[in-house]
């Protein structure tokens, strides 16, 4: 006889789940904060290059506009061919559309943010420089001088 022995059936006490909604709400709010809905469908294949220590993170996404350059992805290849194209917002564009794009992007920003505008160039690794130089010249003419060569950071462990 031991006093630790319980008498009869032991029942598992039911868990109190009343705080479960709160828990899930917390996680929900976290995701609501960090989420940014993808506004554009990327129509080009874009494998951006990898860099090392010099790659900086871009802060303040509202300041950043994207220009994609690369060969059209599979669904679009039959129409546009395999050579690299420029994508602005949702559609393929020619270099002469860049200036309007920059102006439109600039218009959508707050006045005090306008000089801080950054153009993020997402360019496929295997693109040739010709098209990139053309884009850069257009950006200079449109006075969008802050550019970022988009790249992923490779962590080198020494």
């Amino acid at each position, binding site marked *: 006889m031991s006093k630790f022995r319980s008498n009869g059936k032991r029942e598992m006490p039911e868990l109190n*789940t*009343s705080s*479960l*909604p709160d828990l*899930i*709400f917390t*996680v*929900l709010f976290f*995701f*609501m904060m*960090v*989420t*940014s*809905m*993808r506004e554009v469908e990327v129509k080009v294949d874009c494998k*951006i*290059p990898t*860099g*090392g*220590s*010099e*790659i*900086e*993170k*871009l802060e303040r*996404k509202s300041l*950043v506009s994207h220009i994609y350059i690369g060969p059209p992805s599979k669904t679009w290849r039959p129409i546009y061919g395999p050579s690299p194209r420029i994508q602005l917002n949702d559609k393929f564009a020619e270099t002469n559309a860049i200036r309007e794009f920059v102006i439109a992007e600039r218009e959508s920003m707050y006045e005090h943010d306008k000089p801080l505008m*950054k153009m*993020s*160039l997402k*360019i*496929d*690794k*295997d*693109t*040739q*420089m*010709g098209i*990139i*130089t*053309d884009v*850069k*010249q257009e*950006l*200079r*003419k449109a*006075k*969008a*001088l*802050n*550019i*970022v*060569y*988009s*790249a*992923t*950071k490779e962590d080198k462990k020494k």
Partner: protein
Amino acid sequence: MAKGKRKVPGLNQSSTADISFILLIFFLVTTSMDTDSGLARRLPEWDPDAVEQELKIKERNVMTVSVNKFNEIHVKNGVMSRQIEISELKDIAKEFIANPEDNASLPIKEEYEIPDFKTVVTTIKHVISLQTDRVTNYEVYFQVQHELSRAYSELRDEWTRQTFRKKYDDCTDDEKAFARGMYSTKISEAEPKQYGTQGL
């Protein structure tokens, strides 16, 4: 006649968890946490007369890094032009920018007053000119840019270690600005060569 106090029956809240789960899953699916990162650069102002200005820079102050259509990297300082590997570029650039031995063929060292700090002797007039062909591969170009960036960062880091006895990363914003004044990034991306009738 109602009798006394009426109690509001407690709501059944067992489905709140399910509702928030659905919302949670929706945001989980739509979220894209890809933080953008990249190599920041500033383009020069658009100025049709810029080509003439470049000619005024003395030869010893210019290092030309050119990537040709075979993706080979050539470095030219003065009259000497040689082909190098990408791994050599950083050290060559560092020597060019800092000119530690005051070599006569490397950039001239002059007194320069870092704003709000002190006067230093540095190669304030140096320019690295980056030239590419229209068929150069972007990745090679990117790596060249990256190596040049590294050269500047390492020089700044060495300088802050000497001057403030700490790493560049640990410096205050002001000290970082001084380091950037000491070795300011001067990469000129040459105007593209003109082909045929394509006007700019």
